[in-house]
């Protein structure tokens, strides 16, 4: 058998990625910086850590493969502009498009269209990260479907850079829907959810709900028409999403928010509540915390990656 196929993924490492690995090096605490739009998620970074930045650039985009390969330091805005030229998108939807792809994935928070497009993790096909030893690790694979080996990409998403520093990712792209329409009204958002087939977003603040419909223009119009008798009318879009606190509930538990004060915006069908005030992180069971501690211990025994941050 030909030798070229030996470790084929490892043999295709971009020079920018190798260079980033060199900068991270083998020792000393490092903090990886994105665009600092949510720099304090998971607690303050240790002041002593050396700051590094993941490479940026869109390195490969084949519209007919529906995949895009880019440096983790690429901003979401740049990625969006690039993909839009061929009618595609990656629905990361950060609150601030100045955010970097790596930052969004490190935080692991999905955008407001998760109801239709799913969890942000499910958009990641392959990751290359720099590990605590300064080496590049590739996991997942470049194709839209793949079960070769353990799913490290899903582990890295949401790990706040504490297990590895994302250098490059391959993401799944989607076609930009031909039509989109927001509606607003004071009807029951839970009833609206049951009425609709796969809406893109239902945001609710206790008195009003904003609903996003996307798809074929005929369908968007027909679904919108169903909502009019339920008390909804077309509008330009929702109010700004509060960007400080995220409270995670079961979707059915959101109903208890009715009549509660304060300013919040909840994602119906998902169970997420965006708040202006910080929300303390939910506890992790002791068995799971032990597993997470063990993972950290094995992957970064000297705690040099993003010291100070806590992903659990």
């Amino acid at each position: 058998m030909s030798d070229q196929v030996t470790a084929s993924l490892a043999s295709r490492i971009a020079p920018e990625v190798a260079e980033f690995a060199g900068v991270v090096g083998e020792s000393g605490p490092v903090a990886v910086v994105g665009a600092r739009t949510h720099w304090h998620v998971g607690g303050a970074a240790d002041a002593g850590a050396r700051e590094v930045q993941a490479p940026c650039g869109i390195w490969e985009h084949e519209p007919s493969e529906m995949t895009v390969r880019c440096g983790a330091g690429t901003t979401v805005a740049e990625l969006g502009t690039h993909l839009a030229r061929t009618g595609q998108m990656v629905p990361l939807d950060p609150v601030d498009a100045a955010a970097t792809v790596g930052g969004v994935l490190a935080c692991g928070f999905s955008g407001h269209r998760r109801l239709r497009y799913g969890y942000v993790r499910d958009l990641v096909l392959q990751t290359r990260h720099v590990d605590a030893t300064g080496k590049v690790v590739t996991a997942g694979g470049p194709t839209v479907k793949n079960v070769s080996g353990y799913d490290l990409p899903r582990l890295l998403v949401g790990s706040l850079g504490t297990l590895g520093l994302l250098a490059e990712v391959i993401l799944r792209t989607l076609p930009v829907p031909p039509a989109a329409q927001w509606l607003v009204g004071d009807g029951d958002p839970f009833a609206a959810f049951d009425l609709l087939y796969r809406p893109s977003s239902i945001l609710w603040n206790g008195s009003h709900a904003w609903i996003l419909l996307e798809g074929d223009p005929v369908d968007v119009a027909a679904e919108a028409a169903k909502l009019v008798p339920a008390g909804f009318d077309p509008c330009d879009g929702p109010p700004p999403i509060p960007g400080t606190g995220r409270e995670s509930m079961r979707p059915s538990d959101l109903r208890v928010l009715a009549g509660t004060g304060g300013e919040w915006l909840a994602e119906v069908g998902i169970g997420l509540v965006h708040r202006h005030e910080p929300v303390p992180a939910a506890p992790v069971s002791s068995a799971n915390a032990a597993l997470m501690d063990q993972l950290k211990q094995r992957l970064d025994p000297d705690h040099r990656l993003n010291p100070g941050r806590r992903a659990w």
Partner: protein
Amino acid sequence: MPSRSAVLVGYGLGVVSEDAAADAALLADLRRVLGSRARDNDFERGLYSRDGSIEGSPPAIVCLPETAAEVAEIVRICRRHGRPFLARGSGTGLAGGAVPVGRPVVVATSKMDRIVEVDTANRVAWVEPGVLNLDLSRALAPQGFHFAPDPSSQQVCSIGGNIANNSGGPHCLAYGVTTAHIAALEVVLPSGETTTLGGVEAEPAGLDLRGLFVGSEGTMGIATKAAVRLTPNAPAVRTLLLDFDDVSEGSAAVSAIIAAGLVPSALEMMDQRAIEIVEAFAHAGYPTGAAAVLLVELDGLPGGVEAGVDIVREVALKHHVGHVRVAADDEERALLWKGRKNAFGAVARIKPDYYLHDTVVPRSRLTEVLEKVYRIADAYDLIAVNVFHAGDGNLHPILAFDRRQPGVDERVKAAGRDIVAASIEAGGVLSGEHGIGLEKRDYMGMLFSAHDMYTQDLVRETFDPDGFANPLKVIPTGSRCSDSFHQHVPEGAWV
């Protein structure tokens, strides 16, 4: 049953000698918990010695637990006896994931088959691992939902197996593979402790251990319950059959459909031999003279579906389609799918045995890799039949053969290796949905560096530092840091 277990040719697994006294002591402890549901008769050990792959080796004991508490008890007993355990669903896996290695205790989930709760308010169902895939979707149908992953084996494969292999199916093109449909998992860890990974809430706190467990092929513990997501049934569905007299036109049409901005819910391809075999069996009116057919399904709201039908038609015409057949009703739709879903079994019409492969290549390389597959099969004097998930570039070459021919096993394996290599050379991966198991374990180095595999093994070891859970699968032994996988595999099992 011979007193020595079968030899697993080619995986470095030699003859394992039995220790009758150790087995008897283990069985006695298991019987205290399970009574007659802990078994060591030759018939059942034979039954559980194989999965859908071509490997086999009997377990020491087969257990049929009914509850998660019993599973935890089995794991603790295995640990006390220093014996590995192996979770097993329906045994349809094709990569040898459920093939016993090191005379383990098989933990079969077939009696854990309850749908515990259908929670439409949170759009999840809590199910036990032994629930069969299609039974679940049938049970959800009255409420207007289904479980989206639909492997071709869905009539018989279990949700636990789907989770462990992160299985896919024709409709995963639009809806995503199993991991996108699992909210939470109750698992018995290799320590014997029970925990819940993930959750039904929006963003379960901490690292995504759920995502790590899905696809870990039983090497991180045993799933005893899962919260699976409910997908609403689409209001409109259209199924089209397109035929081409040139495979490359068919493949080009696949890429063109995707490039046109469509995400069909399914986009399957069959080659000439597959069409003939399937037609003889299903009588679905497949055009037997064609070089390739595409089965395209669009679902969703009616406007988008109809617009999609027009786009598919337009693209197909540009690629010199022979006929565009649009199923007129559900009956015709079911008939078209009957052929596709039973294609593998129908291969028995040409040869008694088959070996089903699974690799993924970029869509743009489909034609080229298919041609290589035919050349490889010819070179090893085997027959290749192709029925596959073209929409996501997921090839499924079937090598048909007759096991009674001397030396054929070696030829089948060598051809398989060449197919994997050809796929990887074209920028593809080892497996799209069947997993690594034993079959592709030693090919991992074609894709990953030693350090990549070492890192994966560090992660596995976090769950199973002592190497009890389905040992010697997925990661080749050379990459082990502490060789924990090895510890409980009896002397002689590894040569």
